[in-house]
């Protein structure tokens, strides 16, 4: 089981991060064990003739120790996934892992001549981890304790408690061990350097943590506001639409004769009431849609790879009933040559774009007309053109069609149910998807609305 698969059980962002870092730490340790074992083998085979007094037994012991501990941590991590442990337990695990690393590092430092190689600086990666997940005081204590551990071989060598190991037979180590002042000076400089590094890391990570908390808080606020907005929109939509829906339901019932016979004059009035209800229902829906789109917060997570051909095929079936009322034929013409119509978008916005364009095409077409939906490509764009043979738009009005509530005179005369908001919705949805919309029209000849969407997948 991968951490990504089970990470859903932990809600806290810090726990998630801690689990990821623990997993990362175990993986890094496996890499270190593999690479260092390989290096030991190479050095043993290739550099045996050189004057390097390597104590292979200590290096192997350090690797075996790390291997055993890491195997334990590997299974401990799985246990922590299953049990969905909190930050307290996970921090304890991290502390244990850091201490293990320091212990193994101490052995390696001793085997490599204590001060003869810069291996001592390997305490810094764990210092970074401690600054990320512990308080500044705790991380300083951990860093200082690690420092004490890795300089311990040098101190013990100075007091002749353990044998002095030197791998290069240089006089540098003898010089440091010969005078207490030099040893103290060396230790002071080393410790100061590490503490300075810790201070820099701590400042950076504190700033990062502060920013992360601010971001998290803003994100939670955004989610809450978005939820509140959805509820408010739902409530207002319902409050506005429900009375009209009741009126329209009465109209349907009266029209179908469920309240007894009505004379032609009354029937005409009822039909008019029904049409005005439709207009209001559409207008309310469009106004709320427009309001929603204007406050839409775009994020990459809302988009996904889609097949435009499949979308259009499914989309057209939704408009069969509406087109059949006017005996209008809708044709889908796919002019793509062996090109897969992949785009990154979301169905909701695509649906809003094409439903408004196609509804306009149907509403402003003459009965028994033809509407062609042509799918083609132009360089890196996929083009969907909705071509009708309807009333068209006067050239002087073509630049106003995206304005809210704009309706050309011939449109009002031909179809009174329009709200003048459809193309404003199309414009906003296109902006959200990064698409382009082009309109060509000739009065009494028809209109071509083309939507250009960028090709591509995730």
């Amino acid at each position: 089981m991968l951490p990504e698969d089970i990470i859903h059980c932990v809600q806290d962002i810090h726990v998630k991060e801690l689990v990821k870092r623990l997993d990362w730490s175990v993986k890094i340790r496996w890499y270190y064990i593999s690479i260092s074992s390989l290096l030991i083998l190479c050095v043993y085979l290739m550099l045996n003739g050189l004057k390097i007094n390597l104590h292979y037994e200590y290096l192997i012991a350090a690797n075996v120790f790390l291997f055993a501990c890491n195997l334990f941590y590997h299974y401990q991590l799985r246990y922590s996934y299953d049990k969905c442990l909190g930050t307290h337990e996970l921090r304890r695990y991290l502390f244990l892992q850091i201490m293990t690393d320091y212990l193994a590092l101490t052995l390696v430092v001793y085997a490599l001549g204590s001060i003869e190689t810069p291996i001592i600086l390997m305490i810094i990666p764990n210092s970074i981890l401690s600054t990320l997940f512990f308080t500044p005081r705790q991380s300083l204590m951990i860093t200082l304790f690690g420092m004490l551990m890795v300089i311990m071989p040098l101190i013990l060598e100075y007091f002749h408690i353990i044998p002095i190991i030197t791998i290069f037979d240089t006089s540098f180590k003898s010089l440091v061990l010969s005078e207490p002042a030099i040893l103290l000076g060396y230790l002071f400089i080393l410790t100061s350097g590490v503490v300075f590094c810790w201070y820099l890391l701590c400042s950076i990570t504190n700033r990062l943590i502060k920013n992360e908390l601010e971001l998290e808080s803003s994100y939670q606020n955004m989610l809450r506001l978005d939820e509140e907005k959805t509820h408010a929109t739902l409530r207002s939509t319902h409050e506005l639409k429900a009375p009209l829906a009741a009126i329209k339901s009465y109209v349907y019932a009266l029209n179908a004769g469920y309240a007894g016979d009505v004379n032609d004059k009354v029937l005409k009035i009822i039909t008019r009431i029904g049409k005005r209800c439709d207009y209001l229902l559409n207008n309310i829906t469009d106004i709320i849609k427009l309001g929603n789109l204007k406050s839409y917060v775009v994020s990459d997570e809302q988009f996904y790879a889609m097949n435009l051909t499949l979308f259009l095929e499914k989309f057209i079936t939704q408009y069969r009933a509406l087109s059949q009322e006017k005996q209008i034929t809708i044709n889908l013409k796919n002019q793509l040559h062996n090109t897969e119509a992949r785009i990154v978008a979301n169905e909701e916005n695509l649906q809003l774009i094409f439903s408004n364009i196609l509804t306009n095409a149907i509403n402003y077409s003459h009965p028994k007309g033809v509407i062609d939906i042509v799918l083609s490509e132009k360089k890196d764009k996929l083009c969907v053109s909705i071509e009708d043979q309807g009333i068209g738009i006067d050239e002087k009005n073509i630049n106003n069609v995206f304005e809210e509530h704009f309706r050309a005179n011939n449109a009002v005369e031909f179809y009174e149910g329009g709200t003048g908001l459809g193309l404003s919705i199309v414009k906003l949805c296109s902006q959200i998807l990064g698409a382009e919309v082009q309109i060509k029209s000739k009065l009494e000849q028809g209109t071509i609305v083309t939507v250009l969407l960028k090709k591509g997948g995730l």
Partner: protein
Amino acid sequence: MSKVMIIDDDQDMIDSISLILEANDYEVVSKTDTENLIVDIESENPDLILLDIVFPEDAQAGFKAAREIAQQESLKNTPVLILSAVNQLSNLGFSFTENDISSDFMPVTGFIEKPVKPDVLLEKIKSSIT
């Protein structure tokens, strides 16, 4: 004669649907809130329930009621049709479709869009009861 129970806070909606159903030989009973829901449904023992979603007390009371009905052993075979003025045709971002019907999240038989078209209503009720 099949019995249909309409649960909707809008009396006009209840009356307009009743006009259609009573003319087609259905017995209609109604309820305008979701309080004592299970007791009232069990006492009426309807063959089908028409359930609104948004009630003054809670914008999602209808969904909650549908889940409550589905969990009741005595009512689990009673078809529930959701009535909604804010559904898939609105495309408002909180829409739902027949694909969203599931035994845990939305345990209903189907949806009917408000305003209610008589032929759609009768067809849905007929197919749900049989």
